[in-house]
């Protein structure tokens, strides 16, 4: 049985201009100990998806339909109190380091200890601090920086601290939202190794979000490509990477430069993502798609199974 199974999830936001379809009919599953990466440009809905998994949507966000089955139970049916217990203990989140994810007026060690004590009230303060020490060692931050405040940390250190905090309760599932964005390339590499190392060691399932497909393909077993709120391609990492089916995936891969291999021209994708307020009855990518056919503009696309572990949402693939 999969650790996490999402079925037909649709999420939207109420805004002054109307109802925004942020995520439409997304389904995927994640087995224990495996990792899944979501790729897509800004606004494609990947962050919304993850917020929904933890039921942390803002007040104007609404999960219109679908089911989120975690360890067999539907999270959407749980009460606030039950969700609170699940958060961090079972499902934890790694935020982007550039975000203001750490409270500026509290010491780092206190913020991590807080997470531990909230879910394990039996621990004393000293025991919690000892655990914080272990976590720091785990992510490679020197012990003498424990009592510092967030603004005293560099970007890379903050990211490690955030990772340490996410590991505080040894969660079963970790959601990493753009954890390497805004970091320089060398630190990016270190952080990615860090995350991979943690996954191997503790057998944690990871959902990895990035707009950078290269990062995702490095760390994840499966890849999901999102566009304008829809999952357009999904499957095993190597299959998606070596033989992308959906035109958008192909475009993403070809807009990314490689150091090795043949030199080819970088192809940016023309046009802009569609307005998410209108519910479209055609393929959302058709305006920008180089292989758009007549069907694409008049009917919603259907899922095409390329292999048992690789599918794409497209009407123009044969």
């Amino acid at each position, binding site marked *: 049985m999969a650790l996490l199974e999402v079925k037909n999830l649709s999420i939207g936001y109420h*805004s*002054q201009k109307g109802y925004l379809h942020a995520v439409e009919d997304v389904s995927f599953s994640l087995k224990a100990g495996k990792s899944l990466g979501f790729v897509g440009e800004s606004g494609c809905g990947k962050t919304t998806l993850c917020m929904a998994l933890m039921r942390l949507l*803002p*007040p*104007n966000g609404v999960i219109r339909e679908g089911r989120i089955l975690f360890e067999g139970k539907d999270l959407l049916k749980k009460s606030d109190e039950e969700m609170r217990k699940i958060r961090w203990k079972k499902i934890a989140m790694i935020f982007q380091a550039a975000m203001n994810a750490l409270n500026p007026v509290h010491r780092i060690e206190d913020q991590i200890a807080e997470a531990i004590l909230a879910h394990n009230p039996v621990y004393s303060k000293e025991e919690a601090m000892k655990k914080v020490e272990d976590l720091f060692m785990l992510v490679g931050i020197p012990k003498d920086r424990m009592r510092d405040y967030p603004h005293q940390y560099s970007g890379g250190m903050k990211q490690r601290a955030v990772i340490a905090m996410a590991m505080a309760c040894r969660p079963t599932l970790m959601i990493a939202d753009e954890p390497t964005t805004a970091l320089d390339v060398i630190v990016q590499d270190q952080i990615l190794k860090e995350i991979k190392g943690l996954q191997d060691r503790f057998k944690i399932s990871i959902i990895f979000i990035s707009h950078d497909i290269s990062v995702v393909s490095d760390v994840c077993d499966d890849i999901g490509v999102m566009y304008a709120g829809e999952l357009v391609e999904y499957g095993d990492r190597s299959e998606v990477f070596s033989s992308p089916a959906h035109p958008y995936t192909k475009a993403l891969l070809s807009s990314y430069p490689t150091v090795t291999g043949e030199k080819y021209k970088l192809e940016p994708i023309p046009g802009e993502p569609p307005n998410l307020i209108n519910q479209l009855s055609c393929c959302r990518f058709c305006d920008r798609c180089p292989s758009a056919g007549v069907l694409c503009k008049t009917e919603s696309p259907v899922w095409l199974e390329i292999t048992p572990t690789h599918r794409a949402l497209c009407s123009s693939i044969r």
Partner: protein
Amino acid sequence: MEKSNKKSLNRSPLIARFREGWAIYRQNLLGKIGLTLLVIFALMAICSFIPPLIDPMYQPMTGVDPDIAKSTSPSLKHWLGTDFMGRDILSQLLAGARVAFMVGVSAAFMSIVIGTTIGMLAGYMGKFVDTLLMRLADMIMVMPTLLVVLILAALFGQLNIWTIVLIIALFRWPGVSRVIRAQTLSLKQRPFIEAAKVAGASHMRIIFRHIMPNVLPLAFLYMTFRVTSAIIIEAALAFLGFGDPSTVSWGMMLQWVWKTGHMFKAPYWLLPPGICISLITLSFYMLGRAMDEVLDPRLRKEAETG
């Protein structure tokens, strides 16, 4: 032909912006209440000219009803009663409205002019001029305006209302200048300033022609806050007995109630001036908050998603 086109081109964005601002403003309840109250006060101020025209007896300062020589409660003849000398309170109240607007708007306007100029200079010139001006602003901001005017009153004798206005303006500009300076600093980086420099515009020209128009909306917003503080300071001064003895302001009226011991005996005299000062302060404040929403889009969003 070309000139008129240019003019209309320049005008329409301004008018369009005004219209847009008005639409947003109208939605704000507080702003509407504030504006309504202010209109009422403005009417009062205008009406202040009427009573003396009808009958010299209603001259706020000197018009004494020959039949009355003490404070009386409201009657048909004197809608709000009379003060201890037999003067009509209502006409005093109306005259007070006029004075409040006069003092408030002039002092605010002057402090805006000073503050904006200094703010632009500090932001644009930078370095030494900036530091000097901002240190000066800091020092002035620390000073309690009321008490400074008191000391000056001690030295220079009874102060004329315009002197009071000037002093208030001289002590209230620092707040404005800070904001304008910040705005100027961010504008300074913009490409259109670079373009003007390259085109050979002198510094003065850049400041007044290019920066000022962009900075003015903010300046006017802060003017509403300055008006309230000016009115309050003048009222407090008059209340303490240091106002201009030849002008009837609401603060002056309160001083008379207090000093002549009618405080407890004449609520019709005690209440109206105090209510007026408080209400006009409130209405300018509401006006300022509503304008804040118009000018700062971020505040609008709070109303949207909340």
